[in-house]
């Protein structure tokens, strides 16, 4: 499978060094980095060829978490696939729920009510905060900074508490439904959320203080994992990585969905396109997410949370218990699923790692003919080999950490 003769011609070997190598006849050392390595937070195998400390050739192999998400989706009704999307990016599940449900809504041609959109935005931004906290904490821990990880996990717990009070589960949320959400926000949610957001921000600032000014952390992050802006675009990279390269591409801004068009937030961009900028972009995005949530809590309108569309939303329990028509309706909707018109749609949302798109082909029955997930982690991982080749072995860890590959999403 691997060709031992293959070398990356992009790495020039200087004259005297080449002569020395010729004399010493040192073959490059083959190092297996992974599949389950303590310094990577994801199951991935990186094969490295090392000349001393320098990586001269590398090969990235993903697929250790492949579960056949798309095949599974083809055999389930539209509503049955929502719990599976939780397992795509398990550190920000509500974002995946929202992406999938919005794609199906686009297929049906349903517009969701205002209050539902605001609650979805809150859920999405909470998930994004949790994801960034986990990404920064885990990457810092892989660089031997353990304390920030503890603070960030503590802060993440607070955010998971909020998600818990929204939907009753911390990680496997199953929150969003086609044409609505599973349950309305608890009436005391704003009072519950505000102190927790403040405390999470305080913990986040502490981790920021520990990391950003730390010379060891900066030396390991600055200038490593560089890829130019043009290369990032050509390799299909999106999300914080692309924005750290100076390209302000954010789906929330360029194709506004839900209520993002009305909210006031900034898109952080970097300029050096290295790991430290990726880290700083994530820091700033965390603060912007908090800003978005506070705005949403302020503006939260009253009203229903479900689209009044009998094709997708199951009738209310009270009516099912007492009336024949609704009971029949419930039976039809559960056993046939909602039937969208035939056709195909692509809908993308900005997930924590980039553009998360769902491409759904419908043949007019209750099950999708094809349900494709465009996973940001997968596209972001593909230039990893290019980023680390030519660098030092020690740079592999921060680069991989900042790509923030989530196995469930990358391998699906």
């Amino acid at each position, binding site marked *: 499978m691997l060709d031992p003769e293959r070398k990356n011609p992009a790495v020039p070997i200087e004259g005297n060094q080449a002569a020395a190598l010729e004399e010493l006849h040192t073959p490059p050392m083959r190092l297996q980095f992974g599949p389950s390595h303590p310094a990577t937070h994801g199951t991935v195998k990186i094969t490295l060829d090392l000349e001393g400390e320098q990586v001269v050739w590398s090969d990235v192999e993903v697929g250790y978490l492949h579960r056949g998400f798309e095949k599974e989706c083809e055999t389930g009704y539209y509503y049955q696939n929502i719990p599976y999307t939780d397992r795509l990016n398990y550190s920000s599940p509500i974002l995946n729920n929202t992406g999938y449900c919005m794609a199906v809504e686009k297929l049906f041609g349903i517009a969701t009510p205002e209050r539902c959109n605001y609650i979805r935005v809150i859920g999405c931004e909470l998930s994004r905060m949790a994801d960034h906290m986990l990404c920064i904490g885990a990457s810092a821990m892989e660089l031997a900074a353990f304390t920030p990880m503890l603070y960030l996990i503590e802060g993440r717990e607070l955010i998971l508490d909020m998600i818990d009070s929204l939907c009753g589960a911390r990680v496997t949320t199953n929150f969003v439904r086609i044409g609505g959400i599973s349950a309305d926000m608890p009436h005391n949610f704003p009072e519950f959320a505000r102190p927790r957001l403040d405390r999470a921000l305080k913990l986040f600032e502490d981790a920021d203080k520990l990391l950003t000014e730390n010379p060891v952390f900066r030396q390991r992050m600055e200038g490593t994992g560089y890829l130019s802006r043009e290369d990032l675009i050509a390799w299909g990279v999106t999300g914080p990585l692309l924005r750290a390269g100076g390209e302000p591409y954010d789906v929330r801004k360029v194709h506004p969905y839900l209520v993002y068009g009305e909210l006031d937030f900034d898109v952080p961009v970097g300029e050096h396109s290295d790991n430290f900028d990726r880290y700083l972009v994530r820091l700033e995005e965390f603060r912007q997410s908090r800003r978005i949530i506070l705005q949403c809590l302020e503006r939260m309108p009253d009203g229903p949370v479900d689209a009044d569309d009998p094709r997708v939303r199951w009738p209310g329990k009270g009516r099912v218990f007492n009336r024949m028509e609704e009971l029949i309706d419930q039976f039809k909707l559960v056993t046939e699923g909602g039937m969208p*018109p*035939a056709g195909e749609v*692509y809908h993308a949302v900005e997930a924590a790692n980039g553009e998360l*798109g769902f491409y759904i082909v419908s043949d*007019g029955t209750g099950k999708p003919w094809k349900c494709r997930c465009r996973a940001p982690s997968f596209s972001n991982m593909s230039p990893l080999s290019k980023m680390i080749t030519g660098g030092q072995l020690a740079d592999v860890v921060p680069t991989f950490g900042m790509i923030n590959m989530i196995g469930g999403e990358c391998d699906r």
Partner: protein
Amino acid sequence: MSAEKPEEKAPAAPELSPLLEKVLARLGDRVLERHTARGDDRIHVARERILEVARILRDDPELNFDLLLDVTAIDYFGQPDDFETKLQVWDQNRAVMRRLPQRRHELVLPPRGPEPRFAVVYHLTSTRLAHRLRIKCRVPEDDPKIASVTPVWPAANWLERETWDLYGIVFEGHPDLRRIYLYEEFVGHPLRKDYAKHGEQPIQEYVGPGAKEPRRPH
């Protein structure tokens, strides 16, 4: 009940979206079909010309499709050419099924058209101009080959490997076409519709390093 019903979109809308106008002006007769449905623009291209079309779409300053989002395939196994073009037949069938479910064996399935079995689908976007386009290329079953777009967008590298892995479509000119999710000895391509969901794989003998060594006692 909601007051207004979402209107059904006709499959091939006669009016052109502004993006498709630009695309058609540049691509001319390379475009076999174009559709605008639910706000998505889509063109169909012959598979022989995909590389040429890709170059034009990327390099033209008016179009500037520099970001390849996704490459995937659709398997229209035993199904009509395109669900949207045969919409009426399917809708009729559904109405018949609702009225007379016991006669479902008499349904008129839309005849299998001359179109090939697979379609390779590309999703493009432009970071500067913020528009999206979908390209579809039909690929026949007996010769599942299409030119790789890796020279135009390196992002296609892994995405095409994935499509090869799961659908068995060969991308000619790909620098490194091997399976990405599954192991090399895997038989078949799992996302094809004729691969059973609970299909089993033969057990492979381990041939890697250390295979000949005697087993260590646990």
